[in-house]
C-alpha cells in the first residue's frame, strides 16, 4: 500500500486553502470598496483640520481619533490606502508585464537569450528590495510615479524568474509539441499555448507582491522618501505619529494596523491560491 495524501486530507487542505483565499479576497474587496468611495461618505477631507480636537482619542465624531492637527485619522487612513493601492497596482502591473515577457522569452528560447535576459536579473536580485527602492527614489526623485517604477524594478526579476521556471515546465508538454508540429509560429506558441498554462504561479506571486508593495510604499514614506506631506500615506502617518505616541498612541496604532490588514489580505489570498494550485507543495 503506497502512502499518499488520502482524499480526505487533500480535501481538508483544499477546504482550508480556499477558506484562506476567500477571506483574503473579502478583506481586499472591502478595503478597495471603502477606499474608492471614501469621498462619498466621509464627512471629512484628509486635510481638514479640526482645531477644537487635536490628538482626540476615538470618539463618535472621530471614530479612530485625530492627529496633532486634528485631522480625522480614519479618513486619512482610507485616503492613504488610495496611494498604497495605486503604488501596489502600478508596480505589480508594470513588473508583471515586463517580467512575464522577459521570463517567457528566456524560458522559451533558452540558450544565449536566456543568459542575456536572466544575468541582469541576478544583478537586480543582489540588492535587498528596500535598498534598491530607497536608492532609486533617492537618486531619481520623490514622487509617486518614481516610487511605482522603483518597486517595479524590484519586481521585474522576481516575475521573470517565476515565469521562466513555469515556462520551462510547460514548454515540453504534449500540447505544445502538438501545436509546434502543426506549424504554429513562435509568437503564437508563446502567447496562445504557453502563456495561459504557465501564468498561474505568476499570478499567485503577484498577489503576494501586492502586499509587499504596500509594505515598501509605507516604509519609503516612513523614512521620508515616498509620499510627501500633507498627502495622507500610511507610512507617513506612522512617522508623524511617532512624536506623539505617548499622548496619542492611536496615531501610530491605527496606520500600522491598517497596513497590516491590507498586507494580510493579499498574503491570505496568495497563500490560499498557492495551496489550491499545488496542494502537496511546500510553503513558498
Amino acid at each position: 500500500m503506497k502512502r499518499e495524501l488520502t482524499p480526505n486530507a487533500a480535501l481538508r487542505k483544499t477546504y482550508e486553502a480556499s477558506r484562506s483565499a476567500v477571506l483574503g479576497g473579502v478583506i481586499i474587496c472591502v478595503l478597495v470598496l471603502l477606499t474608492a468611495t471614501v469621498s462619498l461618505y466621509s464627512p471629512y477631507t484628509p486635510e481638514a483640520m479640526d482645531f477644537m480636537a487635536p490628538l482626540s482619542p476615538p470618539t463618535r465624531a472621530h471614530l479612530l481619533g485625530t492627529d496633532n492637527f486634528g485631522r480625522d485619522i480614519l479618513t486619512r487612513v482610507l485616503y492613504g490606502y488610495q496611494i498604497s493601492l495605486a503604488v501596489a497596482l502600478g508596480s505589480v502591473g508594470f513588473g508583471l508585464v515586463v517580467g512575464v515577457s522577459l521570463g517567457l522569452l528566456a524560458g522559451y528560447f533558452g540558450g544565449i537569450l536566456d543568459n542575456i535576459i536572466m544575468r541582469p536579473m541576478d544583478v537586480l536580485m543582489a540588492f535587498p528590495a528596500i535598498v534598491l527602492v530607497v536608492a532609486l527614489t533617492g537618486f531619481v526623485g520623490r514622487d509617486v510615479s518614481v516610487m511605482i517604477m522603483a518597486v517595479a524594478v524590484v519586481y521585474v526579476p522576481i516575475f521573470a524568474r517565476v515565469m521562466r521556471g513555469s515556462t520551462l515546465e510547460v514548454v515540453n508538454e504534449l500540447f505544445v509539441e502538438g501545436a509546434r508540429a502543426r506549424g504554429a509560429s513562435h509568437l503564437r506558441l508563446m502567447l496562445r499555448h504557453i502563456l495561459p498554462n504557465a501564468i498561474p504561479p505568476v499570478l499567485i506571486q503577484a498577489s503576494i507582491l501586492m502586499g509587499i508593495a504596500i509594505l515598501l510604499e509605507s516604509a519609503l514614506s516612513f523614512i521620508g522618501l515616498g509620499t510627501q506631506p500633507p498627502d495622507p500615506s500610511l507610512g507617513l502617518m506612522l512617522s508623524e505619529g511617532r512624536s506623539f505616541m505617548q499622548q496619542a498612541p492611536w496615531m501610530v496604532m491605527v496606520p500600522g494596523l491598517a497596513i497590516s490588514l491590507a498586507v494580510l489580505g493579499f498574503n491570505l489570498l496568495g497563500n490560499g491560491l498557492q495551496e489550491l494550485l499545488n496542494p502537496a507543495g511546500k510553503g513558498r
Partner: protein
Amino acid sequence: MRLLRYIAGRLLLLLPVLFGTSVLIFLLLRLIPGDPAAVILGLRATPERLAIVREELGLDLPIHLQYGQWLGKVLRGDLGKDFRSNEAVTDLLSVRLPVTIELTVLALGMAIAVAVPLGIRAAIKPGGLADRGSMLLGLFGISIPDFWLGIMLILFFSLALRMFPSSGYARLHEDILVNLRSFFLPALTLAVGLSAVLVRVTRSAVLEVMERDFVKFLRAKGLRERLVIYQHVLRNASIPIVTVIGLQFGYLLGGAVIVEEVFSLPGVGRLIVSATLERNYPVVQAGMLVVAFMFILVNLATDVLYGLLNPKIRGGGA
C-alpha cells in the same frame, strides 16, 4: 578537493553578478536629473567646489572611463569621499558596518532559536498547538511592517515598561550589557519577519523529510524517535533551511535599513537612508556596494554550507 572545485565554481558564477552590481551602482549617479555635482553640493555649490567634485567623480570623462576610474578606486579600497564632511567613506563604513552586522546576526540567531524548534514541533504534530502557533506566526510575521512592530515594541517595552532603551547605543567592546540591551528590541523586530518565513520552511522541510523511506527504515530498526527526528530528519531538513536562511539574509539587510532608522542605531542602513535624504550620493553608492557585497558573500557562504552538508558534493567517504 571536490569541495574546493565546487566553491571555485560558485565563485566563478559570482563574478558576473559582482560586475553587474558595480555597473548598476555606478550608473545610479547617472540617473540623477541634471548635474550630479550640483545636486550633491546643493546650496554650497561654488564654481571651485563644483570643479573639485567633478574632478573627483571624473564627470568630465567619457562614461566608460568614468566607470573604469571609479571601479579602479573601489578595488583599491577607495570608496570616495563624503563631500559634506570631507571624510573618507571607508572610515564612515568601518564604524557603521559592525552595528549592522551585530544587528543582523542577533536577529538571525533569535529567529533560528524560535522558528526552527517551533517548525519541527509543528511538523511532528500537524494540527497541534505548535502547528497552529507556527501558522499564525507565519502569516502575521510577514504581514506586519517591521517599522511599525518596532514602534509598538518601543511604546510597550521602552515607554510603558521602561525595560529597554528606545534609542541610543554603546559599542560592543565599550559596554557589552548596554550594547545588548540596546540591540535587543531592534533585533527582535527584525527577527519576527524572518521567523515567519523560517518557521514555514522548517515545517514543510521536516514534513517532507519525514515522508521519506529512510525514516521508515530508521523506525523499523528501532532507533529511538528522538534520534530519528533530531539527528536524521533535522540534518536532512537543514539543507533547505540553510538555503532559505541565505536567501533571506537580503531581507535582514533590507529590514536593518528600516529598523536602524526606527531605533536610531548608527548602522549602514541608517547611513544609506540619511545620505539619500541629504543627496550625499557617493555615500549612498558606497553603502549599497557594501550591502550588495555582504549579500553576495552570504549567498556564497550558504552555497559552501550546502556543500558541506551534502556528502555527494563534499566528496566524503571511501
